[in-house]
């Protein structure tokens, strides 16, 4: 703590103490996990086909989820931040509710709507023979439902924060609304969009409850890394610890890399 005080001389002691405690709170579980992991069997677990299959599925689905979240989430964030549509507060609340729902409940809600007997799922099943549960698209849907709000909220605050002067100038010069959005608004909020995308990706990668409820568990189709970890806990705790560590490292590397390269710009741009 003394070194900390030396580096940041203006930090009040109370803040430094509380902040450091917060850091310890987050570091301790990860540290404990790292200590308990049987690193010697890392090669075995990494060479295990079931693990690599789950890892690949997790990466593929979380990336697809992030892409879809950007395609639909950025327009939603714009509507929430800039438009004058009625009931915006209500819409925002509803569209971000899944963040606070217990994920298993989110999964049940998805079954109730898109499941074989669901409100819409039944129609899809009867009309075009489409059955979503227990398929890879179901994994993406579950992740999207739980993770997209992170993008919407981050990007909305980005839109709300960015100055509208340049947009007005562009409009005055005769630019169409789409041109203003795509060439002025989006570049100005690029870092918020990236930050939201990374948050969404990280949340999607770790998604467990909604996925196992809505998509079930089938190797290669719906068994993501978190589900593989949970089931390994039943049979081989060491494997479970190793797979968890794998997830932690994967997320850490990407979060640190992205933060250094792009997201750090948020603070500077403000």
């Amino acid at each position, binding site marked *: 703590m003394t070194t900390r005080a030396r580096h940041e001389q203006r930090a009040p002691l109370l803040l430094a103490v509380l902040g450091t405690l917060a850091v310890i709170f987050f570091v301790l*579980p990860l540290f*404990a*996990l790292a200590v308990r992991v049987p690193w010697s069997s890392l090669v075995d677990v990494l060479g295990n086909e079931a693990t690599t299959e789950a890892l690949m599925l997790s990466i593929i689905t979380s990336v697809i989820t992030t892409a879809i979240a950007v395609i639909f989430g950025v327009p939603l964030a714009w509507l929430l931040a800039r438009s004058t549509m009625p009931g915006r507060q209500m819409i925002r609340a509803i569209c971000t509710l899944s963040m606070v729902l217990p994920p298993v409940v989110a999964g049940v809600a998805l079954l109730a709507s898109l499941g074989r007997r669901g409100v819409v799922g039944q129609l899809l099943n009867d009309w075009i023979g489409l059955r979503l549960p*227990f398929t890879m698209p179901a994994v993406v849907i579950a992740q999207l439902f739980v993770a997209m709000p992170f993008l919407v909220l981050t990007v909305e605050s980005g839109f709300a924060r960015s100055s509208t002067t340049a947009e007005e100038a562009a409009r005055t010069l005769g630019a169409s609304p789409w041109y203003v959005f795509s060439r002025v608004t989006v570049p100005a909020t690029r870092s918020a969009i990236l930050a939201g995308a990374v948050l969404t990706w990280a949340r999607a990668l770790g998604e467990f409850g909604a996925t196992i409820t809505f998509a079930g568990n089938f190797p290669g189709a*719906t068994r993501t890394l978190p589900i593989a970890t949970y*089931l*390994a*806990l039943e049979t081989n705790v060491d494997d*479970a610890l190793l797979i*968890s560590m794998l997830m932690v490292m994967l997320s850490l590397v990407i979060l640190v890399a992205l933060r250094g390269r792009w997201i750090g710009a948020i603070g500077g741009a403000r």
Partner: protein
Amino acid sequence: MHRVVQLLFAAVVVAACGSSDQRSETTVVFAASSLVDVLNDLSNDDESAFVRAVMSFASSASLSAQVVDGAPVGLFVSADRQQIDELVAAGYGLSDPRVVARNSLVIAVEAGNPLGIQTLDDLTRSDLLLAVAAPGVPLGEYSEAMLRAADIEVSPVTFEADARAVLAKVVLGEVDAGIVYATDATSTSDVAAVYVPEADAVAIEYFALEITTTPGRSSALLNELLGERGQQALLQRGFVLP
């Protein structure tokens, strides 16, 4: 990760004990998920010793791991012999494990059995969606053993984490059939249980073990489970007596 779970659990137990007038008499009971109804029945009976028990339900494997991690447990009722044997071998047992009940496997189908599923062979129908428990959890192992003994190969659409999860998929209509414990299938009127003779090939026994982490408090609970009141409660929930 287990360490964290254990700390959380300890916090819950401490909180539960703190709010009780009879803190010294509170005993922690760990039990397999399939026992949730029967033990809750007992704890709602004022004359039962389970009134003063703090109960935690999960899969036998994860409960067993928590015992090893030092969770303060008085009585552990497992759906799996292996977990009990490991705990006994590691010196956690106060006395020999006792069989308190038996269970059997059934096929859970939608109430009224609209697809007319009668035999284990029907599960191989290509148009049928089947859920089973994952290999590694006791129910999954039992299901696999039954299918192997009957030489029947099925293609489930999902391998669920436990019996209740398999049952939930059947109740919600997402699958046509699921292999579960008889006690789970009788716990809800939303599903019908199809009994198959091949289920006799697997012996499913529930073992109770007094755990050394809180010695001296669990005998009353174990005796009740083995006695008239406990066995009656087990029968009512569809268990078979040992």
